[in-house]
């Protein structure tokens, strides 16, 4: 199995009455709540945490893209990935990823990802999410009717741009370019592995991943038990397409808090978990989906159960009402897997088996969890949990993993900051 340390980079200083006084953490969240000084410290601490995870032996460190929200402060994950590329040497840099339909032209992604791949010595995983409705439709103004088609055309363009041996013309429906010829090109050949993060509901996305041999990563906040049905459907879709059941073609996101006992877990992790679930996931239902974000086919599959359960037609277009979440619910439903290292090992083993996922994205920092506790959680996970699960799925080959592409495996290293080349010393006046 592979373990990836995922940072959402939530804004850590939302007020206690945020839920009562604001309708949404996303899209039209009150800009006056953002304090750039808090941002300064948060970015630096969050990057420290990602770098620490790299040192502790996590296979990948993950960043992602969101807009106009206090849930995740990374409008540009590529900026974060660039600093991580310079400050780490071992972990793969998993950008989960760039919301393709929001880049004009999408070759911008081909360029930036190629920069990151060269900079990091071939450590990049290229993630291509559609993006949430909040990001794509409401913050960046993409009509849902054309969002997915535009996204897919963009992904095709990027993959071609990385591989064509000559400059070419691209006459797309959404992008027209007379000369496509990105410099630089990625180090990994034919291109960095492509991972597609998703919400576990789109049949078309699964088929598309299957057709292109992309990894599918189900990013859920609501625990693996609720995800079993969805992942079963994913694997059934693969089987229908005569595609193997290699666990490394899928990933799952899970919150984890390692402690000595359940009581200690609550003491340590309840506050940041409640902060995350009740403030960072406090969204206005109108923004959580829009007619057309889901395809009619996916809707038809989903509606029947929703009509039966939800008691209204509201959920039929995927809109979610944010309700207050309790610590009991968080633990009982495994939103956060909490407990002693043995308990966590047992639960994650169960997760990996039941979902058949070889890539586990871990949220070991969530909400307003401070740096010290984050490091402690990361350390305990790396030393007491990870080794016991390392060999799982050892009989499968991971074809969705970066391979450096460097001729002599020798990577360039940043010069020490105080070297003779100048470092950070102030220039002396003549």
């Amino acid at each position, binding site marked *: 199995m592979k373990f990836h340390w995922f940072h959402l980079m939530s804004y850590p200083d939302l007020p206690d009455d945020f839920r009562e006084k604001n309708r949404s953490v996303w899209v039209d969240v009150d800009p006056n709540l953002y304090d750039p000084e808090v941002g300064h410290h948060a970015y630096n601490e969050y990057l420290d945490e990602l770098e620490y995870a790299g040192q502790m032996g996590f296979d990948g460190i993950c960043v992602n893209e969101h807009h106009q929200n206090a849930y995740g402060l990374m409008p540009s994950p590529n900026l974060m990935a660039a600093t991580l590329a310079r400050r780490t040497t071992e972990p793969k840099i998993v950008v989960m990823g760039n919301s393709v339909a929001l880049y004009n032209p999408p070759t911008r992604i081909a360029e930036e990802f190629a920069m990151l791949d060269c900079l990091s010595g071939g450590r990049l995983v290229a993630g291509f999410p559609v993006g949430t409705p909040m990001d794509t439709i409401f913050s960046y103004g993409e009509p849902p009717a054309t969002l997915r088609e535009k996204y897919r055309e963009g992904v095709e363009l990027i993959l071609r741009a990385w591989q064509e041996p000559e400059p070419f013309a691209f006459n797309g429906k959404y992008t027209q370019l007379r000369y496509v010829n990105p410099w630089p090109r990625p180090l990994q050949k034919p291109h960095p592995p492509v991972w597609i993060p998703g919400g576990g509901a789109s049949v078309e996305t699964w088929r598309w991943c299957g057709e292109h041999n992309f990894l599918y990563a189900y990013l859920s906040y609501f625990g693996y038990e609720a995800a079993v049905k969805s992942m079963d459907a994913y694997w059934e879709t693969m089987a229908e397409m005569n595609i193997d059941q290699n666990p490394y073609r899928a990933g799952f996101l899970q919150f984890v808090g390692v402690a000595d006992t359940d009581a200690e877990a609550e003491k340590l992790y309840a506050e940041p978990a409640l902060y995350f679930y009740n403030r960072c996931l406090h969204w206005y239902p109108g923004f959580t989906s829009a007619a057309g974000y889901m395809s009619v086919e996916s809707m038809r599959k989903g509606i029947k159960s929703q009509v039966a359960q939800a008691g209204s*037609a509201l959920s039929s277009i995927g809109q979610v009402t944010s309700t207050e979440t309790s610590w009991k619910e968080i633990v009982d439903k495994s939103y956060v897997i909490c407990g002693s290292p043995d308990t966590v090992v047992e639960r994650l083993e169960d997760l990996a088996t039941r979902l058949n996922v070889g890539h586990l994205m871990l949220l070991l920092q969530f909400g307003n969890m401070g740096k010290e506790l984050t490091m402690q959680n990361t350390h305990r996970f790396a030393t007491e949990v990870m080794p016991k699960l390392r060999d799982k799925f050892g009989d499968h080959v991971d074809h969705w993993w970066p391979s450096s592409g460097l001729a002599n495996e020798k990577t360039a290293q940043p010069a020490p900051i105080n070297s003779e080349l100048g470092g950070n010393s102030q220039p002396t006046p003549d």
Partner: protein
Amino acid sequence: MEELNLPSGRSAKVFTFGDNTAVGDNIKGDNARQDNDNYNDSDNCNDNNLPLVFFHSAGGVDENDPFLNQLAASFKIYAPVAPGFSDLEELDDLVSVSDVALHYDDILEALNIAEFHLAGHSFGGMFAAEYAAHYPKKVKTLSLIAPVGLWNDDYPVLDIFATPPLELGQYLFGDPDSELAQAFSSLASDISGNEEEIVESIIQTVQGLVTAGKYMMPIPDRGLNRRLYRVIAPTLLIWGERDQIVSANYAKDFAKLLRDSKELIVKGGGHMITLEFTDKLVEAITKHAK
């Protein structure tokens, strides 16, 4: 309802109401225009026999539409179903509002209607205005009921795409406590009955919203303000005074850009004025067009 196969390869459903006028060649405005003597003779004005074409709102149209059934006492009415509403794939090649105007013209050509009165409501009002700007000579009179299509920062159009369906009722009607508003809310939350029918009706509604979104998101302004000068038909601008979706202030903005318009602001009316003040609207449109 009839289904037309268009030269574009798309098909189109058209609901018809009323039969007070013969259809087909007899109503071709071209003939009327060519016959100048007849045309100028006010006692025998063929305009009275022209049909009325109606472009529906994002809510769709069906044969039970009370407004159109009542209006059918005065006109033979053709109400084409907007592309996308029955099948989203119809939108694939309809990239711009001009593409949609051409599509509507394909429908009218297939119906063999060369001159007509045109009316549209809300989303359909925008396309009625677009059509009249693209084909000014075919439209004898134009009636726009709370059309979208212009944008003013001082009174932004409500973002219906970010409004949960259950909340929409409070914005659609001039009186949110009225029976109509209550009925809408209970309809939106009603899940009783045949499951298949519910699923299909939800999908219909969603397809309508996706279509509307394609030409209205993120801002319902696709440049109509640059084209309205082309409209030559006398235009009646109808608005509910209390319209909370598209403010009645937009009547003035439309009037400024149109050559020949008058306004009717209905006291107490909301966005669903066709349902709220059916009699008044039928009377006003009939008077405007006859």
